[in-house]
C-alpha cells in the first residue's frame, strides 16, 4: 500500500517516558504545535495515534464512536498488528473531541470513492472535491471507520512506530536495522540474541525522525488482523458498567422532559404550566421557540408534570397533510417532470418504444424512524464560561461545535465527554441536531447539569427520517427475453449517489429523479439510499426474470458477466442456501444483490406463508465480498445485524404522516423483529483480496427484495409497496415449482 506524501507522521515523548506516534492528513505545522503543547502536559492530540509506555503497554486512541459495530476493537487490531504488539498489552481509548482528531481520512476516502455524501456536504467544497474544513468532522458513518481511518491512519501509525523502534534498537546494538525483527512487543536481533521491549525503547525512539513512508504488512504477515478477536467493549456490556450518554449522573443534576411542535417547523404560541409547576420536584418550565420543557429533579417527575402542561402551537399549511397526500404529490411530480439525470446510457426511450415486450411497475417505500435503543438524550452543563456535554453521538467534534454555537461559547471552551452509543444508525449524525439544540438552550437557564431526554414517543415523532420514495420503472425486452431498455424515475433526495444504479448489462438505461422534499425532515438511515433503491431495482429485475421465463438466479448471472465479484457472492449465497435443490414443502427462495459502501452483498431468503397468510422468514443466507475482513467475527455480527435491521424495515417499518405529524408512538405501532420472528442467519465472507469494503451497512439493502422475491414465488403476488405487513397473502396462488 502506498502512502501519500501529503500525509505526515509525527512523534513525541510522553511525560513519564514513552512515545506517542501520530499521523496526520493535514498540514504538519499544526501538529508540531500540538506535539509541543502535549510535551508540556496539555491535552492536544493527533489524528490517530498510539502511545507506548515504559511498561510495554500500548494505548490506541480511536477517533470513531463505538455504536455496536465493533470498530474500537478492529481499529486497535490494525494499529497493533502493524506495530507487532502483543494484543494482551493493547488498550483502546476513545479519542477526545478536538480538531486534531478530525476524521479527515473518511472525507478523503469518500470523495475519491463515491463523491461526497450529503451528510459531509456542508464541510466539503464539493465542486473541487476538496476538503474545506475537516476540522469540524469526527464522524462515524458510511461504513467508513475501518476502510479509511483504519487503512490510512491506524496501520500507518503502527507501521511507523515499529520502524522507529527497530531503528532505535539497531542503533543501540550497532547492527543493521534489516537484521532486526519484531514480535509481541519486542525488537530482536537473532544473530546476537539481543532483545529489547518496546517500552524500553520508547523514550529514545521519541527523539527519532519518523519515516515518511512506512511499509505496511502483506496479508500473509498479519498476526492480529484476520483473527476473530473478542471485542474490547463486551465485558462492560454484560455487567451494566458500560457508560452511555444517558447514564451520566450527578447529585445536583436536573432532568428535562420536552414537548416539541408536533407538526414539523411550527412554533409554540402559548403555554399554561400552572398545574405542572405544583408538582413535586418541578423546578421550572422553559418555553422555547418550538417547544416547552419541564425541568425537575428526576426524569419521571419531569415527564409526568409535562402531561399537565397545556400548549398551543401555531397552525401551518401542513396541518392537513397525510402520507396519501405526499404519495400523490410524488406521483404528480413524477408525471409532470422528467427530472434530473442520475445515469444515462444509450437510448432507453427509443429502445423502449421499439421493444417487443414492455413492462411497467411502480414501487413505494414509506418514511422510517431510526429508533436506536437508547432514546435521544443530551446533558449539558454550562458553568464558569465553559460548557460540558454528555451525549451519545456519531460525531463528538461536531457536537462540541454545535453546543458552542448555540450557547455562544468558543469551540475550545466546550468539552464533549465520550460514551458508548446505544445505537446510531444515522440518527446520531451531525445536522440531526434537535436534541442537542434543545438540551443546550434548556441548560442555558441553569448552572447545574441538565439532562434532556426524548421519550420513545418523542424519538419516534421527532426523528429525521429515512425518505419515503416512489420509483417508477419501465423496461423493454426483445423476443428472446433480453432486456434492451431500463428506465427508472424516482423521487429524491439523492443522499448517496449511485444507489439506484444497476450492475446489470443493459445497453440502454435512463435513471432520473425528481424532487421528493416535503415538510418531513430526512437524514441518512443505515445504508442511506441503498435500502430503498435496492428494494426497487432488485424487485424489478426479478419481475423481468419471471417475464423472460428465466430463473431469477440465472437471469442475474447472465447480466453480470462483467461483474465477477457480484457473480461470486450470488453463487456462494445461492449454493449455501440450497438454491435449485429441494426445499421443505411450501418454502421458496428469493434473492437479491447490491454493492454499497465498497462491499458487494448477496442475500437469499427462505420464506413460507403461514396459515394466517403471513410470510415467515426462516433463514437468510448472505455472502459478502468486503475485500477481506479485519475481524471475521465482528464482520459476521455486522452482517447479522444489517439483515435484522433491514428485515424489520421490510416486514413492519412504516412512519405515516397524519394531520402533518407522525402517527406512530412507540414499539407497539412501530414493530420490530424479535426473537420469535428473527430468522436463522448464515454468513459467508468472500475474501477477494480487493480493497477493504464497509460492513456496517451493506447487509441491510438486499434483504427486503430477497424476501418479497420469495413471496412472489409462493403467492404470485408482487410486493411493490413496503412494509410487507400491509399485504394479505391468504389468497394463495402459488407459483412454487413453476
Amino acid at each position: 500500500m502506498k502512502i501519500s506524501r501529503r500525509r505526515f507522521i509525527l512523534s513525541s515523548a510522553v511525560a513519564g517516558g514513552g512515545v506517542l506516534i501520530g499521523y496526520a492528513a493535514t498540514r504538519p505545522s499544526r501538529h508540531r504545535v500540538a506535539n509541543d503543547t502535549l510535551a508540556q502536559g496539555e491535552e492536544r492530540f493527533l489524528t490517530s495515534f498510539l502511545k507506548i509506555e515504559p511498561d510495554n503497554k500500548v494505548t490506541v486512541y480511536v477517533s470513531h464512536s463505538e455504536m455496536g459495530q465493533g470498530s474500537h476493537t478492529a481499529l486497535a487490531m490494525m494499529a497493533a498488528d502493524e506495530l507487532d504488539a502483543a494484543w494482551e498489552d493493547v488498550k483502546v481509548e476513545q479519542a477526545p473531541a478536538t480538531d486534531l482528531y478530525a476524521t479527515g481520512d473518511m472525507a478523503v476516502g469518500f470523495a475519491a470513492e463515491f463523491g461526497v455524501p450529503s451528510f459531509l456536504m456542508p464541510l466539503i467544497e464539493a465542486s473541487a472535491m476538496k476538503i474545506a474544513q475537516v476540522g469540524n468532522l469526527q464522524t462515524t458513518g458510511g461504513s467508513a471507520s475501518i476502510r479509511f481511518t483504519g487503512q490510512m491512519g491506524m496501520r500507518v501509525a503502527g507501521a511507523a512506530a515499529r520502524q522507529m523502534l527497530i531503528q532505535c534498537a539497531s542503533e543501540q546494538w550497532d547492527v543493521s536495522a534489516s537484521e532486526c525483527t519484531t514480535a509481541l512487543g519486542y525488537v530482536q536481533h537473532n544473530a546476537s540474541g539481543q532483545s529489547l521491549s518496546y517500552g524500553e525503547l520508547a523514550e529514545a525512539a521519541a527523539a527519532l525522525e519518523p519515516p515518511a513512508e512506512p511499509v505496511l504488512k502483506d496479508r500473509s504477515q498479519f498476526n492480529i488482523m484476520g483473527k476473530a478477536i473478542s471485542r474490547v467493549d463486551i465485558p462492560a456490556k454484560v455487567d451494566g458498567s458500560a457508560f452511555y450518554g444517558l447514564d451520566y449522573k450527578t447529585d445536583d443534576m436536573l432532568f428535562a422532559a420536552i414537548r416539541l411542535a408536533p407538526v414539523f417547523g411550527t412554533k409554540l404560541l402559548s403555554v399554561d404550566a400552572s398545574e405542572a409547576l405544583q408538582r413535586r420536584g418541578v423546578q421550572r418550565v422553559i418555553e422555547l421557540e418550538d417547544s416547552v420543557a419541564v425541568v425537575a429533579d428526576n426524569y419521571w417527575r419531569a415527564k409526568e408534570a409535562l402531561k399537565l402542561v397545556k400548549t398551543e402551537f401555531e397552525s401551518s399549511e401542513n396541518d392537513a397533510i397525510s402520507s396519501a397526500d405526499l404519495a400523490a404529490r410524488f406521483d404528480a411530480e413524477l408525471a409532470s417532470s422528467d427530472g434530473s439525470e442520475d445515469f444515462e446510457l444509450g437510448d432507453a426511450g427509443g429502445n423502449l418504444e421499439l421493444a417487443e415486450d414492455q413492462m411497467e411497475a411502480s414501487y413505494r417505500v414509506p418514511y422510517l424512524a431510526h429508533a436506536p435503543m437508547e432514546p435521544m438524550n443530551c446533558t449539558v452543563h454550562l458553568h464558569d464560561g465553559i460548557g460540558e456535554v454528555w451525549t451519545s453521538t456519531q460525531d463528538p467534534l461536531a457536537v462540541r461545535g454545535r453546543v458552542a454555537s448555540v450557547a455562544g461559547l468558543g469551540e475550545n471552551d466546550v468539552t464533549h465527554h465520550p460514551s458508548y452509543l446505544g445505537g446510531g444508525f444515522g440518527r446520531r449524525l451531525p445536522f440531526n441536531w434537535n436534541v442537542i439544540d434543545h438540551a443546550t438552550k434548556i441548560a442555558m437557564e441553569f448552572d447545574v447539569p441538565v439532562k434532556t431526554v426524548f421519550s420513545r414517543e418523542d424519538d419516534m415523532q421527532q426523528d429525521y427520517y429515512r425518505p419515503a420514495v416512489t420509483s417508477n420503472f419501465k423496461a423493454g425486452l426483445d423476443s428472446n427475453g433480453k432486456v434492451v431498455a431500463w428506465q427508472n424515475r424516482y423521487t429524491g433526495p439523492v443522499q448517496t449517489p449511485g444507489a439506484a444504479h444497476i450492475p446489470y448489462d443493459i445497453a440502454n438505461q435512463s435513471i432520473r429523479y425528481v424532487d421528493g422534499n416535503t415538510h418531513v425532515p430526512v437524514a441518512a438511515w443505515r445504508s442511506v439510499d441503498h435500502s430503498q433503491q435496492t428494494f426497487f431495482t432488485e424487485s424489478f429485475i426479478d419481475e423481468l426474470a419471471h417475464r423472460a421465463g428465466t430463473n431469477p438466479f440465472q437471469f442475474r448471472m447472465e447480466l453480470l458477466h462483467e461483474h465477477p465479484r457480484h457473480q461470486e457472492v450470488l453463487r456462494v449465497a445461492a449454493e449455501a442456501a440450497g438454491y435449485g435443490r429441494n426445499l421443505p414443502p411450501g418454502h421458496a427462495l428469493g434473492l437479491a444483490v447490491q454493492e454499497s459502501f465498497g462491499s458487494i452483498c448477496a442475500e437469499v431468503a427462505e420464506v413460507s406463508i403461514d396459515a394466517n397468510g403471513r410470510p415467515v422468514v426462516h433463514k437468510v443466507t448472505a455472502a459478502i465480498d468486503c475485500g477481506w475482513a479485519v475481524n471475521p467475527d465482528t464482520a459476521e455480527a455486522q452482517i447479522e445485524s444489517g439483515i435484522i435491521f433491514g428485515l424489520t424495515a421490510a416486514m413492519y417499518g412504516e412512519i405515516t404522516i397524519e394531520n402533518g405529524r407522525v402517527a406512530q408512538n412507540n414499539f407497539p405501532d412501530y414493530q420490530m423483529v424479535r426473537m420469535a420472528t428473527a430468522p436463522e442467519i448464515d454468513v459467508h465472507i468472500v475474501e477477494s483480496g480487493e480493497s477493504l469494503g464497509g460492513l456496517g451497512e451493506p447487509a441491510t439493502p438486499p434483504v427486503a427484495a430477497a424476501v418479497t422475491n420469495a413471496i412472489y414465488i409462493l403467492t404470485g403476488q408482487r410486493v411493490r409497496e413496503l412494509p410487507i405487513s400491509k399485504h394479505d397473502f391468504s389468497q394463495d396462488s402459488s407459483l412454487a415449482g413453476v
Partner: protein
Amino acid sequence: MANFKVNGEEHSIDVEPEMPLLWVLRDELGMTGTKFGCGIASCGACTVHVNGNAVRSCVLPVSAVEGQEVTTIEGLAESSVAYYEPGALNAVQQAWIDYQVPQCGYCQSGMIMAVSSLLTANPNPTDAEIDASINNVCRCGSYPRVRKAIRSIASA
C-alpha cells in the same frame, strides 16, 4: 418512604409510591445499568428481577416492590443461585462474552436479566419457549447470537 432491597442492600427512599422502579434506580440511586428504552414495558431494556423473577421496571410502581428483593444487572453475578461461582460472572453473562452477543449493548442488561430468569425457571427451554419468553427488542439484531448463547447454557 419506599423500602426495598437492591442487590442485597437495604434502601429507604422518599419518593412517590407510583414512581416506576426504573427511575428510582436510575435517577434516585444512580444505578444506570438498568436501561430506559420505551417506558411502556414493550422493549424489555429495563428488565430487573424482583424475588428472582424478570419484571419490566419502567411500568412497575416502586410501591409494588415494598419489602421485596430487587436484583439489577450490577448484582446479577452475586445473586445467581443456580449459576453462581465465586468470583465468576453469571453463566448467562459468560455465555454473552463467549458468543460475543452484544453490539451496541444497550438492550443487553435487560436481555441478560430476562434470559437468566428464564433459565432459572426452565433450565432447558425449547426454541418456542425461548421465543415466548424472550421478546426483548435488540435494534442491533443480536437475536441469532442470543439464541446460540442460551442453547450453550441449556445444553451444558
